[in-house]
C-alpha cells in the first residue's frame, strides 16, 4: 500500500485567543473510511474546515499524496481532490437538483460567466450520477427544498465524487436523518468505498454507525488527538470511552444518577 492520501502534521488552528486545534497529526488512506470522533466542540468541524480550505491553519502542514499544500480557498482544496459535504451540505434549497449539482462548475458554451448553460447535458449527467449512487430522481428540475434530508445528503456526495474527489469528507451526514435514511447514507458510503481509490472521512456522534462502516478511528478532545487505531485494534469499550472525551461511561452514569 502506498502512502496516505492526506496527512497532517502538527496542525494548529487558533481563533484569536482560542485554540480550536492544538497540533493534530492525521493520516487518511485511500479505500478506507476514517471515522473522526469526539465530543461537541472537540474541533472536528474545525479540522475538516482547514482540510477543505475554509480556514487556513495557524501552524502545521497539510500533505496531499505526499505533497505539501496550502489551500487559500475551498476551490483550491476541491481542485486538489478534497470534496467536502458540510454539516449544512452547502446546497441551495431554492434551486433545482441539476443547478445544485453543478453549482460553481457549470457546463457552458461560450466564455466567461455569461456563457450559456448546457442544461440538457447537465440534467442528463446529474440523473446518471444520482442513479449510480442509488437515488432515482424523477425530475432533475425538482427543487432541493422539496427533497428529503437523505436525498440531499446523497446529492452532495454524488456531486463531490463526480467532480473528482479523492477524499470525501462527511460532517455528521446522518445526524439529522431518520433511521432508514441514515442507513441509506451509510450504504452510499459503502458504495463509494467499493468504487475504490476514494478515502472517506466520516464525522459522527453515533458509535454504532462508526463501527458499522469505519476502518480506522481518530478521537479528538479539546483540540487534540486522544486516541487512534484501526477497527481491529480497538474494542467497542475503548471507542465508547474515547468518544466521551476520555471519561468513563460509568462515571457519567454516576453523575447522571446524582442529579
Amino acid at each position, binding site marked *: 500500500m502506498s502512502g496516505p492520501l492526506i496527512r497532517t502534521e502538527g496542525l494548529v488552528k487558533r481563533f484569536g485567543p482560542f485554540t480550536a486545534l492544538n497540533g493534530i497529526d492525521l493520516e487518511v488512506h485511500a479505500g478506507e473510511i476514517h471515522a473522526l470522533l469526539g465530543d461537541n466542540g472537540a474541533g472536528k468541524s474545525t479540522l475538516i474546515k482547514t482540510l477543505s480550505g475554509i480556514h487556513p491553519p495557524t501552524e502545521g502542514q497539510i500533505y496531499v499524496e505526499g505533497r505539501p499544500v496550502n489551500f487559500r480557498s475551498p476551490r483550491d482544496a476541491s481542485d486538489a481532490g478534497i470534496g467536502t459535504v458540510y454539516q449544512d451540505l452547502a446546497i441551495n434549497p431554492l434551486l433545482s437538483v441539476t443547478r445544485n449539482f453543478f453549482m460553481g462548475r457549470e457546463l457552458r458554451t461560450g466564455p466567461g460567466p455569461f456563457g450559456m*448553460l448546457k442544461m440538457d447535458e447537465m440534467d442528463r449527467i446529474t440523473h446518471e450520477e444520482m442513479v449510480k449512487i442509488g437515488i432515482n430522481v424523477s425530475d432533475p428540475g425538482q427543487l432541493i427544498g422539496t427533497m428529503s434530508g437523505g436525498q440531499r445528503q446523497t446529492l452532495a456526495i454524488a456531486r463531490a465524487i463526480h467532480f473528482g474527489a479523492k477524499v470525501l469528507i462527511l460532517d455528521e451526514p446522518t445526524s439529522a436523518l431518520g433511521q432508514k435514511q441514515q442507513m441509506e447514507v451509510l450504504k452510499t458510503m459503502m458504495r463509494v468505498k467499493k468504487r475504490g481509490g476514494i478515502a472517506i472521512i466520516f464525522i459522527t456522534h453515533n458509535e454504532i454507525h462508526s463501527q458499522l462502516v469505519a476502518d480506522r478511528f481518530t478521537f479528538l478532545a479539546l483540540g487534540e488527538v486522544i486516541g487512534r487505531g484501526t477497527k481491529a485494534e480497538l474494542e467497542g469499550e475503548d471507542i465508547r470511552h474515547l468518544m466521551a472525551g476520555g471519561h468513563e461511561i460509568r462515571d457519567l452514569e454516576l453523575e447522571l444518577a446524582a442529579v
Partner: protein
Amino acid sequence: MTQVMTNMPKRTEADRLDRGGRLDRLKRRPEIGVFLVMAIVIAAIAVASEGNAFNALGLKNNLSIISQFGIIAVGACLLMIAGEFDLSIGSMIGFAGMSMAMMLKWGLPFGLGPATPFTAFALTLCMTLFLGWLIGTIVVRSKLSSFIVSLAFLFFLRGLTEVSFRVINKSTQISGLPDYKETSWFADLFGGQAFGWVYDIWFRLGGNANRAGEQWVAGFDMRVVWFILVAGAAYVVLSRTQAGNWIYATGDSQASARANGVPVDKVRISLFMLTAFCATLFAACQVFETNTADAAKGNLKELEAIAIAVVGGTLMTGGFGSVIGVVFGAVTFGLVANAVFFIPAIDGSFYRVFVGAVLLIAVFLNESMRKRITGGL
C-alpha cells in the same frame, strides 16, 4: 392486537412526484399572480377610459412610463434575487441626470471643453458605475446590510446633486438645452423614437390619424427599446447562463454558494453596478428626450422599483424571482400610474392606494410560494 404491516410499498421514489399537466405547471409559475392582476388592470383601464388608454397616443404614453418603471425594476429584481437591496436608485437617477445636463450646459469638468451627448453620457456612466461599485464594495467588505448602506447613499447622492446644482448652476433645474436628439445620433438613441413602422402601418390601416386626417403619432419612445433590451438580456442571463446560476445561488444561500466556489462578492458588486447602470439609462432617456434636468428627478423611484420586483414574484429574502414577472409588474404599475390621464374622474393618488394594496397581497403570495417550494420551511 396490533397487526404488523408487511406489504412494503412497491412504488419507487420517482412515482411520488406528480408533475401534473400543462395547466398545473402553468398555475405553479411564480408569475401567475401578477399576470392575472395585469390582465384585470388592462381590461379595467381599457373599459374605464373608453379605449383612450390604448389609442395611438395612449399606448405610446403608457409604454413610456411602463418602460421607465421596467428598466429600474429589472435591475432591482436581479439585485434582490442575489439577496440585496439598493435604495439609492432614485437618487442615482437624479445624480446622473444632473451630471449629464450640467456637462451639456456648462462643459466637461476639469476644463476639458464643451461636452457632446456621448462624452456627457460616458463620463456620467463612469461615475455612476463607480458609485455602484463603491456601494457594493462597502456592503461586501463591511458585511453591513445593503439596506442601510444604500440608504446612506440615497441621502448622500440626493444632497450632492442639489448642492452641485446650486453651486454650479445657481438653480436646481436645467431647461432649454439644445434638442440634441435632432443633431446627434447618440442622443437620439435615448431621447428619440423607435418602432415608427408600427404607427405607420397603424395609420395605413386607417387608425392613428388626427383631426386633419394626418398621421398622429410617429413612434414609441426609445426607452421602450431599452426596456426590451434590458429585460431580454436580464432574462437570458438569469435563466440560461452561469452568471444567472450564481445570482440565484448567492441570494438563496450565500455560504453554500461560496463553499461551492461561486464568487459571491463579485456577483453582488456587479449587481450594484447594474442598478447604477439602469438608473443612468433611466436618466439619459429623460434628459435627451425632454432636454431638461431637475434635482428632484427619480425621487422614490427606488421604492417603486422594489415594489414592482416584489409584485413580480421576487422574494424579499432573495434566491428566487423572475424577469417575466417584473415585466408584468411594470406594465401593471405603469398603467395604473398613468390611469388618471385617461380616466379624469379618478383621483391620481389612487395609484398609491393601489400600490400599497397590491404590494401587501404580493408579499403574502410570495411567502406562501416560498413555503411551498422549500417544503414549508
